[in-house]
């Protein structure tokens, strides 16, 4: 069967919610087009499958879709290698020409930026808050407004901590974090002023900020008096534990609200949101988890046309509103942040103006950088966390100072492991040198 001649624009996305959102918009767009080559065809593809297709096409230098909406992890795979070998088109000239930078939250561009060049249009900000079981907390007469730092959080909430009392499922922890949840660990590192990758894409695992965060996590999960436990986000077991109030608080980036609304509707009316407690007084009250971009593959024809479609989808006020209404996701386009829609009380969170709360935190969202070594750096960091948790368990640690020296030691080893990969990469060494010369 001969392949039909491809005239229209093809677009891939991995999220059903995105597809549902775009479909009416795309239909409206298509109806307006007199030129059939401007019509858009949307395909919803599983995230892993999409990554494989995208990377195969990039590695082979063959055309894939015209517009690809990629998640942070898989988009990062395409950023390996020198600038000229990135499979996505460099959008910097378009972004600059159309003045997009001023209209969009700056941190949202960072994951899609490599060596100062922008390869994707950001879809979101994904600020993170803490969702807590307000029913339980308020019944205990606890006032969360007193909480400013993580230390405050643990101190104020501690009365809710249940010890094992014979009946297995009634014990209760304060926080939902555990040693293998690397996404959360990364978010915590970023909030604490650390991170695993620097702006040039090099692993920077071993530093004081990271050591402090992982020591705290180890203490929370594995110390003498653990206050944190594992409640998986993505399965029925975890949902049940959430409903049981097995943990008081859990991490909630904006998209998570939508996930709960759909998957655990029983939680509605039991939870409230609060900014993340800071690591230090006056410190950052949020972090970031997840992220999506829209990119144009280098092989695509007529990038100008595609750029217009991308702008239409990502910069439209209407779509930004729908994104929040149906997806609970806050737009990265800062000029829409003043809109009333974000002030609407959300019954799921006991009437809190959730959107406004996220938007207030959006400017504080930390920068994160993409790197081909990101996965390795994170994996090594996770190893360090696990090693530290073991130490915490074995020594029955009671404060983070007991863990800090070991934390530095493990992070240094993790850094060395990660750098082994960086250092044996001849191309990366070249591009680093080039980057040093250019400025």
């Amino acid at each position, binding site marked *: 069967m001969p392949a039909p001649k491809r005239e229209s624009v093809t677009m891939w996305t991995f999220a059903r919610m995105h597809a549902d959102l775009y479909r009416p918009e795309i239909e409206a767009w298509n109806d307006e087009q007199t030129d059939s080559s401007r019509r858009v065809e949307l395909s919803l593809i599983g995230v892993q499958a999409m990554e494989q297709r995208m*990377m195969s096409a*990039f*590695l*082979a*230098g063959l055309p894939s879709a015209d517009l690809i909406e990629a998640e942070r992890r898989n988009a990062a*795979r*395409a*950023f*390996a*290698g*020198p600038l000229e*070998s*990135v*499979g996505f088109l460099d959008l910097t000239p378009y972004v600059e020409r159309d003045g997009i930078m001023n209209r969009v939250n700056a941190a949202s561009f960072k994951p899609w930026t490599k060596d100062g060049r922008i390869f994707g249009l950001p879809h979101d900000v994904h600020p993170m808050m803490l969702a807590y079981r307000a029913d339980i907390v308020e019944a205990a007469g606890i006032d969360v407004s007193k909480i400013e730092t993580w230390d405050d959080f643990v101190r104020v909430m501690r009365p809710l901590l249940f010890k094992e009392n014979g009946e*297995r*499922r009634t014990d209760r922890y304060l926080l939902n974090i555990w*040693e*293998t949840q*690397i996404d959360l660990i990364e978010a915590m590192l970023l909030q604490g002023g650390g991170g695993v990758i620097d702006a040039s894409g090099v692993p920077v695992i071993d530093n004081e900020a990271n050591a402090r965060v992982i020591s705290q996590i180890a203490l929370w999960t594995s110390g003498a008096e653990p206050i944190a436990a*594992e409640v*998986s986000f*993505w*399965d*029925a*077991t975890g949902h*049940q*534990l959430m409903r049981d109030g097995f943990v008081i608080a859990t991490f909630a980036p904006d998209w998570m609200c939508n996930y709960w609304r759909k998957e655990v509707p029983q939680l509605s009316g039991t939870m409230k949101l609060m900014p993340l407690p800071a690591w230090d007084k006056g410190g950052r009250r949020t972090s970031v988890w997840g992220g999506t971009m829209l990119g144009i593959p280098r092989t695509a024809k007529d990038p100008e046309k595609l750029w217009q479609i991308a702008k239409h989808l990502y910069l439209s006020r209407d779509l930004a509103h729908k994104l929040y209404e149906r997806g609970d996701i806050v737009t990265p386009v800062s000029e829409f942040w003043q809109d009333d829609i974000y002030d609407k009380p959300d019954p799921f969170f006991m009437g809190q103006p959730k959107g406004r709360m996220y938007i207030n935190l959006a400017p504080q969202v930390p920068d994160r950088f993409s790197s*081909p*070594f990101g*996965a*390795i750096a994170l*994996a090594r960091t*996770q*190893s360090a966390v*696990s*090693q530290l*948790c*073991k130490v915490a368990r074995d020594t029955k640690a009671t404060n983070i100072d007991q863990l800090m020296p070991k934390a530095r030691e493990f992070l240094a080893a993790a850094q060395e*492991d990660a750098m*082994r*990969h960086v250092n*044996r*990469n*001849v*191309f*990366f060494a070249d591009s680093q040198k080039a980057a040093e010369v250019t400025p």
Partner: protein
Amino acid sequence: MSSLAAPATLPGSSSPAPASTSASADRSRSVFPWLLLAPFLLLVLVFTIVPLFGATVLSTQQTFGPGTSRFVGLSNFRGVLSDPLFWTAFKNTFVFTLGSVCVQLPLALCFAMLLNQPGIRGKTFFRLILFSPVLVGVVYVAMIFFVLFQKRTGLINQLLAGILPSWDVGFAWLDQYIMLALILATLWQYMGFNMVYFLAALQNVPKELNEAAKMDGANWWKRFRHVTLPAITPVGSFVVLLSIIGSFQVFELPFLLLQGSTGVDNKGLTIVGYLYQTGFQSGDLGYASAIGWTIAIVLAVCAGLQRLLSAGSEVSRGGKVARGGGAK
């Protein structure tokens, strides 16, 4: 060749030119088999030989993103062999392999011997029951065991706590004991499959030999050692090799059970998992190829050992063949 071709000459064909007839018959005879083989050979060439060659070339290159590669000689291999993570992965994989071979296969043999007892009712039923897990896709196996192995809520911890009151329901199957969990899940999935191999082998154990041993006063263990074991050794060593090969390539199950991570402190990192991480997550396909070749070499050594072993048992198999011939 011409004597073979001769019958192809039609009875009525003129005798003065048999040479040319037989030559053209020769030609068609030599082309036709190749024509039949062509689809297979083409597939092997395109999907096996070329990629094999490609992987060899790749293993001497460093790649970094699309379209960039540079010859680096054996530096990838040097890197692999001095990479502590590779050795962590190797150790994990080795433990898994050892567990699979040393736990799963004896158990499979035990079940096979149980089912091979005369007078067992519902043999077919039990065989089907034990075999059926292999029909379950590995993704579903992972999904099932992910739920079963959960701390606190997992059925396995709950069950064990029900049996042993001192059991810790927070037992971290998927963290500290991931290899144990993997071995158990694989046991569930493949035990019955290997059992069927052993069952087939057991049916080849000469009945008289067992009877002779019984009359000679050999106890169960002596009969097993001198009759059953030698008879099933050829199949047994093949099953061991298959298990080693399969176990060394373990990837999907830990990948899915650990949801894409390599587990607590890399306890769930396997060699192929590391290959995936370096090649497909970090984009260093050359390094990944070197890891792949390292596995290939290890497995080739295993296969060589198996050949040596089965050459040793060839004598006993030769006995069976000769005996069969003698019956004529």
